[in-house]
């Protein structure tokens, strides 16, 4: 994975670089934005002294003090709800929810208010806030620690949804999200929090929201993924390459806003596509991707678009999770089905 080079234009930051994991790059983004903008606050369960259960916020309390890094009571609705008040009071809060599986108590605040405040007041008020949460499976945890429900968020008008797949994007996307005047839900693929390091510029830089990334160029088929599944797509790219298939890998990076031009452009070029996600298949974001391709590139298609997804089941306990999660083998098999159609 460390051989995945982001686009050269995004690399053009001369200021030196560090080799960071995704956890560290998120930490750097938070620290640098807090340094640059005194209105940026971090709050959540265990984010202060403990530095977060994944250590994403490590060191921030020491650097910025308890008024800017707030350990809160254990209450997800409260964390998001008071963040709304803090945002209306002139701050840029970055609340953390400890796991996406514990988002549900906060959903009323997120869906009923965070997503709607700008529209409700016809732009009089807006909520510049980033709700961070680790998502996805692969770390062998107990129940409720592996969910990938990005489709719920995407189906809620008014939320932006960013899902980085590597340390470089994680830092640049989070900085963009913090500076954005609309609420962003930032899903961190905990499975690859520490899976690999990559060179990340030490200074501040942004990766824009709404700009997909062609991670590998190819001409025969497009593998579409985001977050941790980009890794499966890249492994499938390698495997297919050994069989002489040139697969393009498109990392959507943000689902809202969606880079529709990159998506349609790539599929129009290759004529075949596989969309990969961890969340359940039924009404997952893959279904939207397929519908968009059908609406806009049907005549360029050589085969039906394939989906490799989680099952329409509860995410299993850890002993069975490897059977649930989309694998390289499943992506390769789906690609072959499209190629042999």
């Amino acid at each position: 994975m460390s051989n995945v080079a982001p686009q050269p234009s995004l690399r053009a930051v001369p200021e030196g670089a560090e080799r960071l994991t995704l956890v560290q790059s998120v930490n750097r983004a938070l620290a640098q934005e807090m340094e640059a903008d005194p209105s940026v606050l971090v709050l959540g369960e265990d984010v202060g002294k403990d530095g977060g259960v994944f250590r994403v916020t490590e060191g921030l309390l020491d650097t910025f003090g308890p008024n800017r890094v707030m350990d809160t009571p254990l209450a997800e609705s409260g964390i998001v709800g008071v963040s709304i008040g803090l945002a209306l009071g002139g701050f840029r809060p970055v609340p953390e929810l400890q796991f996406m599986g514990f988002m549900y108590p906060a959903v009323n605040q997120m869906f009923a208010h965070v997503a709607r405040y700008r529209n409700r007041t016809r732009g009089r008020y807006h909520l510049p806030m980033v709700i961070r949460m680790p998502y996805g499976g692969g770390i062998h945890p107990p129940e409720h620690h592996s969910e990938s429900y990005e489709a719920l968020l995407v189906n809620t008008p008014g939320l932006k949804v960013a899902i980085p797949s590597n340390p470089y994007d994680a830092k640049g996307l989070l900085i963009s999200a913090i500076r954005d005047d609309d609420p962003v839900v930032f899903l961190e693929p905990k499975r690859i929090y520490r899976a690999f390091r990559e060179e990340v510029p030490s200074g501040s830089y942004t990766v824009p929201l709404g700009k997909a990334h062609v991670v590998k160029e190819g001409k025969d088929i497009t593998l579409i993924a985001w977050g941790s599944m980009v890794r499966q797509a890249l492994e499938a790219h390698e495997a297919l390459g050994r069989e002489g298939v040139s697969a393009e890998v498109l990392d959507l990076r943000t689902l809202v806003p969606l880079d529709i031009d990159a998506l349609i452009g790539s599929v129009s070029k290759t004529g075949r596509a596989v969309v990969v996600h961890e969340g359940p298949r039924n009404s997952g974001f893959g279904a939207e991707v397929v519908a968009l391709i059908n609406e806009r590139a049907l005549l360029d298609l050589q085969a039906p678009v394939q989906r490799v997804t989680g099952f329409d089941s509860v995410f299993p306990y850890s002993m069975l999770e490897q059977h649930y999660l989309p694998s390289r083998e499943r992506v390769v098999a789906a690609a072959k089905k499209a190629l042999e159609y």
Partner: protein
Amino acid sequence: MPKIPIHEAITLRLEILDKDGKADKTLMPDLSGQHLQDLYRSMVRMRKVDEKALNMQRQGRMGTYGSIRGQEAAQAGLAAAMEPQDWTVPSFREQGIMMERGVPPHLVYAFWKGDERGSVFPEGVRCLPIAIPVASQFLHAAGLGMAFKLKDEDAVAVGFGGDGSTSEGDFHEALNFAGVFKARTVFFVQNNQWAISLPFKQQTAAQSIAQRAHGYGIEGIQVDGNDILAVYAASKEALDRARRGDGPTLIEALTYRMENHTTADDATRYRPAEDLEYWRQRDPIDRMKKFLVAQKLWNDKKEQALLEECAALVETEVAALEAMPAPDPTDIVSYMFKELPYNLREQREQLAREVGR
């Protein structure tokens, strides 16, 4: 091992003006004759604006409406105790407070007519939009009060709700957060004793809402919510405390919902008629009027002038409502984000084509 008492608590109810308009002089807030008259005027204005909304709804000129009738003392007393820099964080039965804090009544009418522009208040009006999901707004008030504390601003956020809202988890989370962070927040619960059809006794086994404050380590008090002097005094004390940075307060204003839950409800299905008679005798406006007349601060001439002033206000506000141009259908999508992504741009174009704009 002995059992050791670790907490003892008393919850107080403040009453100053009895139902016949006699005030307890020892508890009287420090208010001039002019102020006392203004409190009364404020309640009458609220009732007239409210009555007009009910009339318009019956005539089909407005959508579903939730009346504040009977709760004017709670709303006017609190509003009068607030300072210009304070923020109102309303739920959906606070239009009296909202208008006293600068929201023009025609915008409240517009909201209930089904127009989002009813939540676009004039610049400088420190009031958040009406929040419908019950109790959710208490957390916004807690967060805003945290912001004032962090910035050491001399402002207080006042979060509102009803008795039903105190059963929601967000009520608990808001009081808990505000207590922990010493937010500059006051929680003001109008216990009008009905959450649609559910009476207060079935909402909780607790005797009062105010006593819950003890569980969060914050101050709590019950006031006779139909006694504007008690509401004012308790509110002033709570606002001052929050402003000083000494922590939040939960105020329970014990009042009564004299109307249906909304115009879509029929309270005769669940509510005994004698209740209404009992509370009619404790009407907040009549009570204050008796007090003012006894103090020689009020007379028929002033009453007549006030009623004329209210009629003119209502007429102006209805005219302002009716002068609002129809909302632009493209507004459905235009405000979802600062910059619209491709799908919303396309959908806006579709709406624009359909309406020929």
